[in-house]
């Protein structure tokens, strides 16, 4: 046996194409996911320099950021329409598979990769989107890149990267009833800060992580970037293998068993050393609600906004409270909302919708609230409809939409109006993220569903109809 290694070291070492002292490594990329917003300038760059796409077969594109989630046949936004058409033309020109607006595989890029089995353990995966970290849930090394790097990967199927440091986020014990993966990742970011992962790849370990489903693991890894880490991953185990079985792009039969054995071997070795380790106790975590303008500004639902006197960074807290229209020491349960968004690459998968539906079943959305559900992919939408979830939501007064990024970043017309306040299952509560002047509170799908009914934040654990 050689020296024990982390999964990051194993994947990295296998993908180095060229290494030189004092320079980043040239890393081979196994899967390049492409969407309409961060790719047009990259393709244009290829054309200007008379270059081509090296491996269209390792590239996969979809439209998600701009797509309307209703009335798809009439896209009024001409600029958005042109951007989507540009992607279509680029994919055609370079032979890249594209799940466009009417394709059965269309959806949020970080939802469809795993759904199709394109995402696999041990792969290096990039996309011009910071939430590419989602794919780390499978034990892939996956990170977001800029448009220049998109162009670079298109042209060379490789990327220059400094070897990252490793950060072990160890979650001991188990989450309490009614406490979700979303609460866990929000609590991690609240505890350690929005930049504690900078320069690192996070590996999430510990009993609580092992007991999460693949969908929950995706929620965790998705928000690694909100802790500053470009990538966050979880060592593959039987849960990973089971999820991938029979997926479209995954090997079948004996080839699958061989692949699965290799995947399990990728897990971090006993005794491997991380550059940094932090620990958090799962049992202490409560349902979370963000109160401020970055994802670290988060407290348990039964707590209050910070006191300015006690705050370390009083200026930041003051500015955030002002933007959010909140007072210091204000109980979270007193905050009334007027919008609810259930969706995004963080929380739009089937189990998210099932859990939210269980909360709203037989109840009515509060009169002051406009609530929408946006499934992560067309396929999830179909499955949910098969189970009758759409009916549950619609009968409660939710709008049921087509798949896309939607109100997470409000590039299409799913926008929270100025001064509006939204309980959102997405990942970012930045100023103006969901619309100019809009106020975002990040929560789990269960907490969002309960808030939709009550018109304010309530502890979902005490909410009638809540499942444990």
């Amino acid at each position: 046996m050689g020296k024990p290694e982390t999964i990051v070291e194993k994947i990295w070492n296998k993908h180095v194409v060229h290494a030189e002292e004092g320079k980043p490594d040239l890393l081979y990329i196994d899967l390049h996911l492409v969407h309409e917003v961060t790719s047009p300038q990259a393709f244009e760059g290829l054309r200007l320099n008379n270059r081509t796409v090296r491996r269209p077969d390792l590239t996969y594109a979809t439209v998600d950021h701009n797509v309307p989630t209703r009335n798809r046949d009439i896209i009024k936004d001409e600029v958005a329409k042109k951007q989507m058409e540009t992607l279509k033309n680029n994919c055609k020109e370079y032979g890249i598979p594209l799940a466009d607006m009417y394709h059965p595989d269309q959806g949020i890029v970080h939802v469809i990769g795993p759904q199709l089995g394109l995402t696999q353990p041990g792969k290096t995966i990039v996309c011009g989107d910071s939430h590419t970290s989602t794919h780390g849930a499978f034990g892939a090394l996956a990170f977001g890149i800029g448009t220049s790097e998109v162009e670079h990967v298109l042209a060379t199927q490789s990327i220059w990267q400094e070897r990252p440091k490793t950060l072990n986020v160890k979650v001991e014990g188990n989450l309490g009833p009614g406490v979700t993966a979303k609460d866990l990742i929000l609590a991690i970011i609240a505890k350690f800060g929005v930049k504690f992962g900078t320069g690192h790849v996070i590996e999430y370990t510990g009993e609580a992580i092992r007991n999460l489903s693949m969908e929950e693991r995706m929620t965790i890894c998705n928000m690694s970037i909100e802790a500053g880490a470009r990538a966050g991953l979880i060592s593959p185990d039987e849960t990973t293998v089971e999820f991938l079985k029979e997926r479209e792009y995954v090997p079948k039969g004996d080839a699958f068993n061989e692949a699965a054995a290799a995947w399990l071997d990728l897990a971090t070795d006993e005794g491997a050393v991380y550059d940094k380790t932090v620990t958090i106790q799962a049992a202490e975590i409560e349902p979370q609600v963000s109160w401020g303008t970055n994802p670290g500004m988060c407290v348990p639902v039964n707590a209050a906004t910070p006191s300015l006197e006690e705050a370390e960074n009083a200026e930041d807290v003051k500015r955030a409270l002002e933007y959010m229209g909140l007072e210091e020491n204000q109980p979270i349960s007193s905050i009334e909302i007027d919008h609810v968004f259930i969706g995004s690459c963080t929380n739009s998968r089937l189990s998210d919708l099932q859990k939210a539906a269980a909360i709203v079943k037989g109840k009515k959305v509060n009169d002051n609230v406009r609530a929408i559900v946006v499934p992560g992919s067309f396929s999830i939408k179909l499955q949910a409809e098969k189970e009758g979830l759409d009916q549950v939501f619609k009968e409660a007064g939710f709008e049921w939409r087509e798949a896309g990024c939607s109100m997470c970043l409000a590039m299409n017309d799913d926008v929270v109006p100025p001064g509006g306040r939204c309980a959102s299952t997405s990942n970012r509560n930045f100023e103006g993220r969901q619309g100019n002047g809009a106020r975002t509170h990040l929560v789990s799908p269960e907490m969002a569903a309960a808030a939709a009914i009550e018109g304010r934040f309530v502890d979902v654990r005490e909410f009638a109809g809540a499942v444990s």
Partner: protein
Amino acid sequence: MEAIESHKGSAYPLDRSNVDTDQIIPKQFLKRIERTGFGQFLFYHWRFDDDGKMRETFSLNDNKYKEASILLAGENFGCGSSREHAPWALHDYGFKVIIAPSFADIFYNNALKNGLLPVKMDEAQVKQWMKQAEDGALELFVDLKLQTITDDNGREVAFDIPEYHKQKLLNGWDDISLTLHHEAKIEAYEKRN
């Protein structure tokens, strides 16, 4: 990419930490398929009100910072979305150097690829320069070759930058051309796997 050896300019202090790329360039401006013309939208909702009128209360709109080309900012600058539109907007607006105690990883990389020099600098030093720029005016001379920044009084401070990035900025090298020198190795890798 435009090469950068040194830059002399006046500084604008943005005393905020965790400035995210949604603030640098809001999403409604990401639909364009061009790489240019994003400067007008920089810090859009901080600079303009809901009617598109300039907010007098936001310091970048102050006449004294009109010619500023060096941005002084708080820690974790450029966090959030990977949008390269952020460095495009900063560069197009006229900023050539950003000095902050720390940068988000993706933004740091994106800046380097666009001839926008991100300088990591001790927080106390950044704060001191911010105060100078607020109280009066601050001109800085940033020498990438020597890795030094000199202020109006001739006081010199050194900064770190990985040699690899420095050489690329100094020469304005295009990453893809450099990588294609290793094309045989990429092919060999593909054959092995």
